[in-house]
């Protein structure tokens, strides 16, 4: 079904030196890039590249929940739709929701419902759309991580960002952040999401088998990685909102400038103090 011809029969997912197919060690993440605020029409959005995964997340709301009978008079609904583009995988994916994407949508909605202050917006819904443009294993983690940035970008009050990462077992070794080949031919994959500040786990799934010890190892790997990812998320948001402010501040730091440096201001006007 998949393009597995390039994989030799006696393939080792991880060699004697502990190097994986793509050159990583057991505890290394794929390269990650996050950008916040990429869509104009959405209240909040984020684009993320995680290895070969490319994911777009958009957040709308809080807005009036439809259909009306779904409205909760005490709190907001958090509704997520995870969707894979037909072109996101090598064989065309049949468009539309399927068993897998409905499940992923559900677990992601529940993960976010536990951090968003839902009681501040009764009768509304916060709608999260996750579009997977290119998939290479770990898309639910990538989607969740991007959606978390999009939620913050949308100005939705929440306890903390949610950071997510998967660990699994390949060639008998517990390893972090499996890619497509490792996911397909490895023994187990275990995605999870945490609230980094409190360490609370808001999503935990497993496909395959791990012993209790291996599971503990996988959890430790994922938690450490999620904390790294958390910093990348925060960085993306800071870049989106503080770029101008920080540039101005750095400028002020570099040259302890004359305190009343005229900035393209007519000389006969009193200098502007400092607006914002």
């Amino acid at each position, binding site marked *: 079904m998949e393009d597995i011809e390039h994989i030799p029969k006696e393939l080792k997912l991880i060699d004697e030196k502990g190097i994986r197919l793509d050159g990583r060690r057991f505890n290394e993440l794929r390269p990650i890039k996050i950008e916040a605020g990429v869509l104009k029409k959405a209240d909040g959005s984020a684009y993320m590249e995680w290895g070969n995964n490319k994911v777009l997340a958009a957040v709308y709301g809080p807005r009036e929940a439809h259909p009306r009978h779904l409205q909760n008079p005490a709190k907001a609904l958090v509704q997520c739709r995870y969707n894979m583009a037909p072109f996101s995988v090598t064989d065309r994916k049949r468009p539309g929701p399927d068993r897998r994407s409905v499940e992923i949508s559900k677990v992601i909605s529940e993960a976010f419902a536990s951090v968003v202050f839902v009681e501040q917006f009764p*009768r509304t819904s916060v709608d999260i759309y996750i579009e997977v443009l290119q998939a290479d294993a770990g898309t639910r983690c990538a989607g969740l991580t991007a959606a978390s940035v999009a939620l913050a970008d949308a*100005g939705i009050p929440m306890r903390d*960002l949610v950071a997510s990462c998967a660990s699994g077992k390949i060639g008998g070794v517990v390893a972090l952040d499996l890619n497509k080949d490792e996911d397909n031919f490895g023994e187990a994959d275990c995605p999870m999401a945490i609230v980094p500040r409190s360490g609370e786990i808001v999503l935990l799934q497993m496909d395959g088998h791990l012993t209790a010890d291996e599971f503990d190892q996988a959890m430790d790997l994922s938690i450490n990685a999620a904390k790294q990812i958390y910093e990348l998320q925060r960085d993306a*948001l*800071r870049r989106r909102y503080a770029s101008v402010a920080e540039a*101005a501040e750095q400028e002020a*730091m570099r040259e302890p400038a004359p305190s009343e440096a005229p900035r393209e*201001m007519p000389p006969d006007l009193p200098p*502007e103090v400092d607006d*914002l």
Partner: protein
Amino acid sequence: MDGSAPARREVVIPGDLLNGHGLKPGSGTFNEGGRIYAARVGIVAEREGFVSVIPLSGRYVPRPGDVIIGKITDLGPSHWLVDINSPYPAPLNAKETPWMVEFGDTDRYLRVGEVILAEVVSVDEAMRVQLSMADRQFGRLTGGQILGVSPAKVPRLIGRDGSMVALIREFTNVRMFVGQNGRIWIDGDPEGVHHAAVVIRMIDESGPAPGLTDAVRAYLEAAYGRRATTPAERDDDGRH
């Protein structure tokens, strides 16, 4: 612009610990285990014993006292339903208008699609909103045009004590109402409306950095080829 930039300039992200010694958690923050954290992306402000986070994004959430621009979406025998650009539809009771509306006669006063300037009177726990148009300054808006901005940018558009609005009015001579819900109504001669619209777009697209008033003044002075008469003033990020 000065080196001793106050800490309130700092952009915070949900989950950031705020330095709230002896302060109470205000809007955009929450208390957990006796510490105060930011609940949303914004700028920290300390005022009257509260630490709060001034949002940089987000939808309009009605608060009592807000002046808003609403659009009539539906009418009943003694009330209208008004879209106030928020997640909650807002009813305007016929008693809350300057007119003596007979039961069933609501469509003689306001029809679907018409635009009003009104005030949010109350917002209860369940976010049920009530509007009023009874005060003299409120009423139906006819003619002109409506622009939308992010509700988080409205305080910047108004400026400290209305300085930004005053600046725009001084040059463009437009009639202008700014709704807290991110809708702006302007009317005037085509040139004035054009320049006002450009400035409003500028403010909507501006980041949290200082220097906005300067940029707006520079644009208007260039467009009209004359100097501003009002002295430079500080912007404000507080709500009005």
